């Protein structure tokens, strides 16, 4: 083997000359990474815009509810009552007041787009594709053509999902979880086949199935690359924590997306081939809906959440890896407890497969089973706390540089902790009986899975932009964007926690507050909507920053952040074969050799000769 390769001479490889092979249907992992990143950016804006639309709806609905309350106190025929009725009608005629079906459709698409097309693509497919091979010293992913297949299947999946907006009946409205029977029988919605549960739902299932397949292919590529293509000296325990995170994420993807694929295909059969995997008997809406008995919607929930819980970690674990990397780089200190971080990531990944039942406490589960799932859920808190402790340990006494990537990373830690505390409430089955399906849950998962992961993407974008595009992003713009977004998401989602504490149910398009303190709820809804509009608008700053910096940002040096991993040892942007002439350097140091006593400068890059590290310096980790 080595004899065979040693016999071959090294020569420079030219990128494909045709534009399409170089930039569209490219097998270069860097191009594929950027394609994933752009896909996530587009999808993020679509998903966010949907949320603004239904936030406007909710705020208007609140006003309508208040006016209705006033109306009920007035004599029906009085002039005042008539004026109020007119006002309500005018409000209802507004574009932003949606029908309940439309509201749920937008909610479904918002969730699906963000969970699959943003949270699952950018951290892994985007940054992972671009930087995993470079950080471990490989010329490309192990199977570049499969890599190209992954991104194009993912794009196909996104197009299929978007097509649901344009078919008769519009997008599906059974939620991003697609629970049957709502998702399985169009007629269960009290509509004909033209309703929202029609073609839109079929496209949704199809899109998810394609996405699963693409993710499986991608995951195999990531694991193989990490295991088999590391350069000389790049032992597993010398990999940056980003690589560890992508590695664990890929294992999670491989094992969980296969199960979702099965759930999706069985659902598709239930919808179109008359089978009864998930559809229970005796469904009745005006007339009996099915002529068979015995299907189990709970079975779908089990399959879905066996995927769905690891999916949460698929979204967040790459962020954890990146944040560990950034905190160390910008605090100019080694990561506190590198090995503990690795074990914690693995711990989260493994335990993550045994907690899916906590999404189903209210689905009719035996309390004994629920307690088992509850205990396992609490166990996830242990590795999570180890990580948080080590992040703080990394910062402690550091010489912190508050650049915009660092701010985003700190934002991630904050959001992860805030969101995580809500998880301790929800993970206990007794407490969850109260909180289930309230806004508390919405606030919780948005903080910990949604915005925390998004902040990691902001951090990754700000940190790696100079490497990917050869130009620096604008720092002041980045900082303004950070502060408004950080404050905004906290206001939005902490307010939602408060609404949940009061018992406000989620997924309702309209409400009657007779049983709740109405003004409080309506005020909360308005605060959330106003802040959401502000925060969403602020994202344009990010877009402006990206576009402006692409063309007019100051040229980036090879290593603008004075970081240690291999991607900073090559030009910005990297040449086609990553390392000039395919000469991958040998690695001699751990990934976080910052502030080594006695060293010439405050960081030692991984490929520097062994002498760069004084023999007298104490062990790094």
């Amino acid at each position, binding site marked *: 083997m080595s004899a065979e390769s040693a016999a*071959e001479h090294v020569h420079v490889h*030219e990128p494909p000359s045709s534009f399409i092979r170089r930039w569209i249907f490219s097998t270069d992992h860097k191009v594929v990474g950027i394609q994933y990143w752009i896909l996530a950016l587009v999808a993020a804006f679509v998903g966010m815009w949907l949320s603004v639309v239904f936030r406007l709806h909710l705020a208007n609905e609140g006003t309508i509810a208040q006016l209705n309350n006033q109306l009920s106190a007035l004599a029906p025929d009085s002039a005042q009552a008539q004026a109020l009725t007119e006002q309500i009608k005018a409000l209802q005629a507004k574009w932003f007041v949606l029908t309940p079906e439309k509201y749920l459709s937008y909610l479904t698409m918002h969730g699906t787009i963000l969970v699959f097309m943003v949270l699952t693509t950018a951290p892994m497919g985007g940054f992972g594709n671009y930087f995993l091979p470079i950080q471990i010293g490989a*010329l*490309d992913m192990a199977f570049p053509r499969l890599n190209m297949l992954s991104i194009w299947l993912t794009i196909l999946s996104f197009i299929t999902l978007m097509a649901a907006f344009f078919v008769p009946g519009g997008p599906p409205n059974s939620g991003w979880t697609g629970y049957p029977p709502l998702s399985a029988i169009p007629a269960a919605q009290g509509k004909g086949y033209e309703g929202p549960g029609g073609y839109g739902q079929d496209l949704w299932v199809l899109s998810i199935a394609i996405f699963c397949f693409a993710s499986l292919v991608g995951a195999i590529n990531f694991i193989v690359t990490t295991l088999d293509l590391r*350069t000389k000296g790049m032992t597993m325990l010398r990999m940056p924590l980003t690589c560890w995170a992508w590695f664990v994420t890929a294992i999670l993807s491989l094992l969980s997306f296969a199960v979702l694929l099965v759930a999706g295909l069985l659902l598709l059969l239930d919808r179109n081939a008359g089978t*009864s*995997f998930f559809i229970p008997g005796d469904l009745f809406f005006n007339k009996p809906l099915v002529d*068979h008995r015995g299907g189990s919607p709970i079975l779908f929930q089990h399959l879905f959440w066996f995927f769905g819980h690891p999916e949460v970690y698929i979204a967040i674990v790459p962020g954890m890896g990146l944040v560990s990397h950034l905190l160390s780089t910008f605090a100019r200190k080694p990561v506190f407890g590198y090995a503990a971080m690795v074990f914690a990531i693995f711990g989260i990944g493994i335990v993550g497969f045994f907690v899916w039942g906590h999404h189903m406490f209210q689905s009719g589960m035996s309390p004994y089973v629920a307690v088992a799932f509850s205990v396992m859920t609490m166990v996830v808190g242990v590795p999570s706390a180890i990580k948080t402790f080590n992040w703080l340990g990394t910062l402690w006494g550091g010489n912190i540089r508050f650049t915009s990537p660092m701010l985003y990373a700190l934002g991630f830690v904050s959001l992860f902790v805030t969101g995580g505390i809500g998880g301790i409430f929800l993970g206990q089955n007794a407490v969850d009986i109260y909180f289930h399906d309230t806004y508390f849950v919405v606030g919780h998962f948005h903080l910990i899975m949604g915005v925390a992961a998004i902040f990691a993407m902001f951090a990754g974008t700000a940190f790696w932009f100079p490497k990917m595009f050869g130009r620096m992003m604008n720092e002041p713009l980045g900082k303004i964007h950070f502060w408004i977004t950080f404050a905004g998401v906290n206001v939005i989602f902490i307010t939602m926690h408060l609404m949940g504490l009061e018992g406000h149910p989620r997924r309702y398009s309209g409400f009657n507050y007779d049983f709740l303190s109405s003004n409080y709820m309506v005020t909360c809804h308005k605060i959330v909507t106003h802040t959401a509009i502000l925060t969403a608008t602020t994202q344009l700053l990010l877009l402006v920053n990206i576009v402006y910096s692409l063309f007019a940002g100051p040229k980036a040096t090879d290593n603008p952040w004075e970081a240690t991993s291999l991607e900073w040892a090559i030009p910005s942007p990297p040449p086609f074969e990553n390392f000039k002439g395919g*000469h991958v350097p040998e690695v001699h140091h751990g990934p976080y050799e910052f502030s080594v006593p006695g060293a010439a400068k405050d960081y030692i890059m991984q490929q520097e000769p062994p002498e760069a590290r004084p023999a007298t310096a104490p062990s790094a980790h």
Partner: protein
Amino acid sequence: MAALEIREAPAAAPARLSEGAGGPSGPAGGSDGGGDGDGDGGKGQHLPRRTYFTALWLALAGSFMIFAALASSYIVRRGLGGDWQALHLPPILWFNTLALLGSSALVEWARRGLAAGRLDAFRMRWLSGTTLGLMFLGGQGVAWWELHRAGMTLSANISASFFYVLTVAHALHVLVGVGALLYVAALALKGRAEAKGGLAADLSALYWHVLDGVWLCVLGLMLVWR
């Protein structure tokens, strides 16, 4: 204590790495040699032989999860619904099983022939194995047709639904396997079966054997929980 552990590990790991990683390590990142569809993406990245096996095992792990999800759905759904009708498996399945196992044996025999450098024997055995694989697929088609004719259509009863889903999922895997066997057969006819130490033959054979195991599990599942 913790520091000790970590200091230990990097020292131990290079030994594992050095065994096959001459390729990815910088100086020898040379060309792939054959250049026949390993997808080096034009960069000439050398992949050690074990890389392909790692990838295959991982793909099989994904497939394992697919069948595990189907099997657990099968058991749960059978236990939950009161509407399960026991399915009489078409007898041809036993013939199909023999064909698949025989195919696997022939393919393995062929692979050993290749390793011993007996190319003619390899071609004969490999093509017979492939033919048996195709016969398995044909036989499965007959089984579906018989069931269908007997009124056990996909939607007739949930037991039939599971039968079709499980056997079709397996048959799709077999189809990929037959494709791989034919690819190697085509290589053999071009006299290139032994390229890279018979890598393509070894990979296809491994995949093909695992499909035997999957089939036995699927069959066992449908026999034990009728």
